[in-house]
């Protein structure tokens, strides 16, 4: 075993890890925004075209492979003169895909809020927007935190696929080092560990947030 290979490529790996993280974090931020908007709208009894569109979005992005979605956005959209650089295409793909999954988490969270909360806020004179923002979403979010963190891990692991758009993130860095050195065992072991470490830290963070939240009112 020759972990010296890894050591020699450390700056390269660090740079790639950073790329993985930046793409994931930015995509996650957009995915969260999408999830809250789409999840809230879909929890509300929509009708007609808006309902069809949102249902289609969620079902389509959950029902087809992320890899194909990335190819479609990067290689397919230029047909309509939408030409994106690889990073932008990757972030859009990850965000749309993650947003579709996470919107279902938010929707489930909203549906689990007790009916009495709606009635109390209505009785107190809250408008629909005030009720949603001040009363329903905070409670739905609290329920959703653990699953949303899973969503982050999902996007992080999914970001390995953006290597196909020639973005030198962690997975592609691994391939490049492997072709240069022919040491797949060492390099892929380290890369898998790096992914694991990142998702593990995030789940610890989530546990921390959860304990803090439930200490407050559980």
């Amino acid at each position, binding site marked *: 075993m020759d972990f010296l290979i890894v050591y020699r490529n450390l700056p390269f790996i660090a740079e790639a890890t950073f790329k993985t993280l930046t793409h994931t974090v930015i995509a996650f931020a957009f995915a969260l925004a999408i999830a809250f908007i789409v999840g809230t709208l879909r929890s509300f009894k929509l009708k007609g075209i808006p309902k069809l569109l949102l249902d289609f979005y969620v079902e389509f992005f959950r029902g087809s492979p992320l890899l194909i979605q990335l190819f479609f956005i990067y290689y397919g959209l230029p047909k309509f003169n939408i030409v994106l650089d690889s990073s932008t295409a990757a972030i859009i793909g990850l965000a749309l895909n993650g947003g579709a999954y996470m919107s279902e988490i938010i929707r489930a969270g909203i549906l689990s809020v007790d009916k009495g*909360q709606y*009635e*109390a806020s*209505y*009785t107190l*004179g809250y408008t629909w927007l005030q009720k949603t923002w*001040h009363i329903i979403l905070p409670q739905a979010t609290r329920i959703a935190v653990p699953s949303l963190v899973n969503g982050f891990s999902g996007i992080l692991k999914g970001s390995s696929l953006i290597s196909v758009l020639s973005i030198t993130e962690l997975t592609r860095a691994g391939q490049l080092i492997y072709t240069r050195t022919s040491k797949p065992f060492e390099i892929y072991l380290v890369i898998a560990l790096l992914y694991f470490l990142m998702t593990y830290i995030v789940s610890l963070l989530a546990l921390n947030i959860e304990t803090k939240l439930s200490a407050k*009112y*559980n």
Partner: protein
Amino acid sequence: MINNSVENIIEIIDIRKSFGDLEVLKGVSLSVKKGEIISIIGSSGSGKSTLLRCINQLEQIDSGEILIHKCSINKKSIHRKEMLKKTGMVFQQFNLFPHYNVLQNISKPLMTVNKFSKEKAYQLALDTLKTVKLEDKTDNYPLQLSGGQKQRVAIARELAMGCEIILFDEPTSALDPELAFEVLNTIKSLANSGRTMLIVTHHIDFAKEISDRILFIDDGIICEEGTPCQVILNPENDRTKQFLNKINKLF
């Protein structure tokens, strides 16, 4: 006792309400004077909650009319929002906001709905908590309170909002007798505050003591109404007699 010259704050005219095939309110009419305290009694499923919920627009009536301060509160009325702000509801299940502490449960609605400044809202919330004797619980979250304390916070929340009319839907039914007693005392202490109160309750003694008028609802209509003496001690209607007998055996 209520003076006859006082205006009617609520006027209910022949309202009907069905859920699917089940007609729950079968033509209910009722006038309530400002400051009047009315207890509503009746067996389970007779439509007591539905009546309160219609007054508060949690349910939409099928026909008839509800006027508050002489303004209609049907969906089309321009005064609807304004009139609804004058009514508050205390639920059997309290329905406090679990993500707010006690002080915030009262101050946040004041800030959000009544646009109070934070200082003003906190001050009023504190003052109101004193009237329900919970000023030492300001920082607790609802889950850290007893049922009776929760219900007193819920009452304080409606008081702070400045509701002229408070609807109580079995405010003590989820509570042990001891805790029910402390909530009933809180409600009694409001009796002379000039607020109009409609109280659905199974505590006949409490109803007798506090009410200006008692309604007995059976099968979707007001079967009997009158002063506590009339309805509780000398009921005329057979169904009222039966109901009171049953209740007396239970409690």
